[in-house]
């Protein structure tokens, strides 16, 4: 065993200075290369295998979308903002479009509203499957993770047929959607996929959500209470896991959600297990919503607004004003604040991703006292999505 003094001496001889850390603590750079953090880094001060202090270190994905948007015409910005959230790119498209719709004073046609709602719900299911994959991998339950990735592929194929792209759809645009539903065959395929996935949920329960390993690993770690969650700006499934019945789709209803019947799952424990189970129940609710939408069927009519101003898109102008739109994403409350000065470009756009509250202060406090092996699990249970923070 080399003594501390010898280490310090050796370091000095080689032109290095060891930082004086208290007790037996050491600093650990967790990410951005670590698979669990997804281009996001945490600086952990460790004592043995316990975290003493955690410092969030974002910024590896900063592309300056908000500034870039100020240089580009209104419609081209769609292709930027969807890159803010990779697992569910339809959400930033939808909020930006909804804010612009409000500024324009447009009533989006019913058919477009139906398509937007369906796309948002499909995005939610896709994103939850992606998250299930990540969570299962972090718990070591690889089978469930691979199933989730495979089932997500079915939705990807549907997205490809609807929008022409697999991941970045650039589909929801101000005033409606970019193109119409390909036909009844697509609707039948969607119905089949929803039914297929509904069947498979039982398998997920058996292997992942009711698994002894899941309970053993997740119970009682990363606990937060209701007061903490509200003050720290926690939203979405993470807030619902602390016992607050809050869902933007119910509280600030948009698109067709007022007409749909669904439940908001709530658990009280506030630990990582509760956050995982809330998400599990939400997959079920989202599939139920998709079923209802298919039952309803797309209303007939145009799929985007008919406005003479749309004929020359680069010169398309939006009246001066500001608007805030938000939707319930799988991470939480996803909002966009859009300001127009009356020109052909936005004056200012701000995207509010849920991870800006989950991924900085909340994670710093939840990790204190956690074991190193639980760090990826807590991070994943919060549904942290680093591009939300960096933008």
């Amino acid at each position, binding site marked *: 065993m080399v003594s501390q003094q010898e280490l310090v001496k050796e370091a000095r001889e080689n032109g290095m200075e060891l930082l004086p850390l208290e007790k037996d603590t050491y600093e650990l750079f967790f990410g951005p290369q670590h698979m669990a953090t997804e281009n996001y880094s945490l600086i952990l001060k460790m004592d043995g295998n316990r975290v003493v202090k955690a410092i969030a*270190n*974002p*910024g590896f994905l*900063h592309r*300056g979308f*908000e*500034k*870039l948007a*100020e*240089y*580009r*015409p209104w419609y*081209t910005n769609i292709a930027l903002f969807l890159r803010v959230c990779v697992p569910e790119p339809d959400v930033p498209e939808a909020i930006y479009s909804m804010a612009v719709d409000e500024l324009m004073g447009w009533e989006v046609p019913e058919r477009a509203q139906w398509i937007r709602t369906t796309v948002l719900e499909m995005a939610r299911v896709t994103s939850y499957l992606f998250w299930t994959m990540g969570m299962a991998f972090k718990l070591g339950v690889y089978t469930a993770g691979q199933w989730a990735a495979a089932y997500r592929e079915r939705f990807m194929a549907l997205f490809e047929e609807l929008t022409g792209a697999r991941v970045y759809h650039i589909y929801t645009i101000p005033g409606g959607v970019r193109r119409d539903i390909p036909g009844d065959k697509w609707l039948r395929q969607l119905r089949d996929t929803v039914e297929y996935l509904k069947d498979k949920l039982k398998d997920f329960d058996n292997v992942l959500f009711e698994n002894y390993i899941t309970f053993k690993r997740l119970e009682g770690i990363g606990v937060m209470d209701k007061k903490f969650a*509200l*003050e*720290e*700006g926690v*939203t979405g499934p993470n807030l619902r896991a602390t016992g*607050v019945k*809050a869902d933007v789709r119910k*509280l*600030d209803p948009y698109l067709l959600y007022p007409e749909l019947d669904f439940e908001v799952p709530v658990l009280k424990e506030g630990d990582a297990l509760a956050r995982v189970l809330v998400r599990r129940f939400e997959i079920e609710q989202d599939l139920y919503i998709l079923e209802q939408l298919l039952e309803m069927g797309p209303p007939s009519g145009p799929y985007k607004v008919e406005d003479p101003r749309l004929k020359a898109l680069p010169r398309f102008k939006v009246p001066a004003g*500001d608007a*805030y739109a*938000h939707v319930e994403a799988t991470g939480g*409350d996803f*909002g966009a*604040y859009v*300001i127009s000065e009356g020109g052909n470009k936005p*004056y*200012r756009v*701000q995207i*509010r991703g849920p991870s*800006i*509250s989950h991924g*900085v*202060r909340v994670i710093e406090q939840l990790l204190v006292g956690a074991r190193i092996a639980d760090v990826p699990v807590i991070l994943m249970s919060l549904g942290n999505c680093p591009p939300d*923070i*960096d933008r």
Partner: protein
Amino acid sequence: MNLEKEQMIVEKILQKAPYAEGTVRRQRRIEFRIPPDRIRDFLMLLKENNFETMMQITAVDWLKDGEIELVYQMWSYTHAVHAFVKTRIPRDVDKARVPTVRDIYPVAETYERDAHEFYKVTFEGNDKLEMPWILEDEDKEAGVCHRKDFDMLGYVKKKYKLLDRFEEDKEDYVI
């Protein structure tokens, strides 16, 4: 459209805060304009009135007016109402100062760090403002920010040596 609920909230808050101006924008959206030195009092009042969560602090650079507008986006789960709390401060880097609100809404600390880095607003009392956030040191020293007078295209051309790809006299680039 029934706006009774929103009007009641605005009236209730304005009674206790005579310095503020309040309007109902539409269903579930209300707006307040307040002087910058009263921001702490006003947000405390909002918290008492069940605005549990702060969603974001948006800084907007109004170059023509020489002012930075801070928009505190507040959300109430009890009322299901979104409130814009707007305040304007001078644009000069030395004078762009407001008191921090992180002891009222702890999450504001993160938003304040963001607004400080990209709009150079100083939130007095927040000691985490100078901690590394998103930008790299090299960019920070070069003065990179999202203010309107920062020449982003010029900086990008210089940094990535893309001088030949752009025409100097063309202003209206779609990047």
